[in-house]
């Protein structure tokens, strides 16, 4: 279950609207924003796959100019990959040996 700290940059005139829209996206918490268009958000998702999907939703908002990452904690996910609980997706249709 990765946790990421993000700085979303929106056009300053729309920063309040964008912060509101971010709060509507699952797993996204807005911690603050400023008049320069900076929004500090945290994404706490089930997998990094889901996190990437949420980032894509943020990037798709029209006034959003960039999405920067400052911090990522993925210990749980790495533990699960190593223990076999979480298998890295194989989206290529290759048959796996049991």
């Amino acid at each position, binding site marked *: 279950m990765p946790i990421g700290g993000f700085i979303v940059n929106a056009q300053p005139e729309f920063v309040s609207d964008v912060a509101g829209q971010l709060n509507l996206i699952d797993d996204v918490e807005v911690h603050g924003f400023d008049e320069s268009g900076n929004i500090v958000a945290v994404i706490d998702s089930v997998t990094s*796959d889901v996190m990437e999907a949420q980032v894509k939703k943020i990037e798709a908002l029209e006034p959003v100019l960039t999405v920067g*990452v400052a911090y990522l904690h*993925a210990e749980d996910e790495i533990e699960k990959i190593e223990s076999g609980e979480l298998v890295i997706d194989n989206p290529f249709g290759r048959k796996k040996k049991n």
Partner: protein
Amino acid sequence: MSVSRRDFIKRSAALTAASYVGMNLPISNVNVAKAVDVDTWVRGTCRLCGVGCRLEMGVKDGRPVALRGVPEARTNYGYLCMKGMLFYKLMRHPERLKKPLYREKKDQPFREISWDAALDLAAKGFAESVKKYGHDSVAYYGSGQCLTEESYLFQKVMRGGLQTNNVEGNPRLCMASAVGGYLTSFGADEPIGGYANVERSYCMFIIGSNMAEAHPVFYRRVMRRKLDNPDKVKIINADPRISPTSRIADMHLQFRPGTDMALMNAMAYVIIDENLYDEKFLRDYATFRVGKESKEVDMEAYKASLDEYTPEKAARLCGGNITAEDIRTAARWFATSQGTLSMWCMGINQRKQGVWANNLIHNLHILTGQLCKPGADSLSLTGQPNACGGVREGGGLCHILPGHRLVKKGKLRNQVEDAWGIPRGRIPPKPGYHTMAMFQAVNDKKIRAIWINCTSPAQSLPNVKPYREGMKSDDVFMVCTDIFPTKTTECANLILPAAFHFEKTGVYGCTERRSQITPKAVDAPGDAMPEVWIVREWALKLAKELNDPVIAQCVAPFVGKEPDYELPEAIWDEYTQKLTKHRDNDLRGATYDVLKSMADGVQWPAPTKEFALTGGTVMKFVRGSDPMADSEAKDDKPYQFYGPAHPDKKLWIWLRPYVGAAEEPDGEYPLYLSTGRIIDHWHTTSMTGRVPELLRANPYSFVEINPKDAKKMGVRPGDMVEIESRRGKVEMPAKVVEGPMEGMVFAYWHDMHEDRMINKVCNDAYDPGSKEPEFKICSCRVRRISGPKALTPYITQLNG
């Protein structure tokens, strides 16, 4: 994990992000530090573009568990992109190569062998080729992703040991024209300034670069500068395609592909016509040059050469949305701002006239004196993390030796031979094959053994099909070092598993002359080993096979050193202390100890440790900033252009006419085709394609088509289309978008699938000076073949 610990980690994530933008959050930081209980944070550099973002990897029980930016780093001030954040997944990826693999014939499956057997085979393969076909029948093809220590040691063994200059690397495909531009305009390779100019610039001229996707963290600085100073800072984006980068521009100049040379000559025309040039700067520091002999001419001759480029004439030639008044406005902004910064990338470099296009950007800066002062620079962006450091500086191309020395100069060859303690005359005087010639030589069976390190030419070369056929032939013995199977390992006899980033130690040199170290943090999986160990052991076996003690001498200083730290440090020391001494990339002060102590490394020249510890040279050629501007001074002027390529120590303004692309649209192939990157993927997707989060975001290539062209073709969004050129054809879905201008299509180039590999279509014509191919422009035709179709993402697998 307990709820409270998750909460603490979330607070830590929020506070870290907030600290980058100076935001105070109304949350407590009590116990936050305890929540992230890593054993150690290891500071290194991201490897997924050329910006050189610094990051720290949190390691717990020998595993990577967390990543964070380095806020003090002047490259990225803590920011990272998602692509960079997810690279840790490659370290534990199940498809990592873990054992040496071999097959005698290329239609056989690979089988696992020991390292000893693998290195024997590699030595025998190269030795047999040398004995049978001569020294120039062997070759090395490296990468701008190799560490400097790796590129340096490979080229040392090839040149000093195997006596061939057949040493190349994939930077030939991306940056060679920038090298040619810097050398011919400024007399020295690599930019004068660096990223720090962004925050001091008042006009930014972005041409041939979609930095919002290709260099997102650096783009953030450009965006911030504009948003914080909306009225004071002007941004001009010149590109045939509207891209995410265009969103912050005050002016978007959309020109017909290749006509940017006319556009820039027209800007120069306006600058002269309206007396906007810096007369004193020109008098003190510049001369005018023309032709192959670099003949000096006067300013009147330069002016006359621009007569063909009045804004009106150029606007007609450029087409697109460009008016004569736009050209005048752009020229005025460029010339009169307090500091103008130009930035470009592959749109300028990957061209049949790439060097000339680079010269024309530099011309504008020299004419207006927009150099060597705060906010002013002519900055070529780089795509790979170590194309500058390892390949341009470390001697990774066929015509250059370490320390920016030319192969063809005997005195410089002797300096290198003496430093290596090998007999003079050992390095041959003739440069080796450049990249396209090298793979043609494979096709022609002139090269019989080739080592490909950390790159995939079987996908990344233009007009790739015939070259791949050559690589697949059993007439060439091919060794690949890599971390994953690629389209190129499919052509190999021997695959050697390499350690990945943070699994070994070494230095990267990024866009702005900045060298940064990444130490080993975790063990490589299986039997994967650092390349420096692989080269050393191979060279020792090669010396026995060829009964040549000079080959052993090339690695003798490194024998017995452990491979994770001592060995790369010894190689770095030899390179920096012996081969950069008194060269323009003097790195003697940037020892491993110094580099480790710095948040963001050292910018050369940095001749002493004391100076390196200040961060090095922020602005080259400027007295007070660059120590060599004093030590190499020829007079008392504040700027000293001491670069090795210009005997007069001046900047050169070139008379360069507009020349079109090698292949222009015609009745048969009526459209321009250009290609480029998308934010989630990098190069051939051998890495990013294996991160499912990134693959899913863009599982396959698509082609952007202007809505007007789509209407003419009867193509709707998502339809499958065929793109065909004189060299080949591919199929991919269409994206109908106001991106490329009318008459042009734009395809993403990362896809490995045979049906969608756009490099089968691209042109392999190359610049006569830089030898860099014209990936960015060719002619094609496009036709609808069906409605939307379900496609399967494809990443190549071992044996199959």
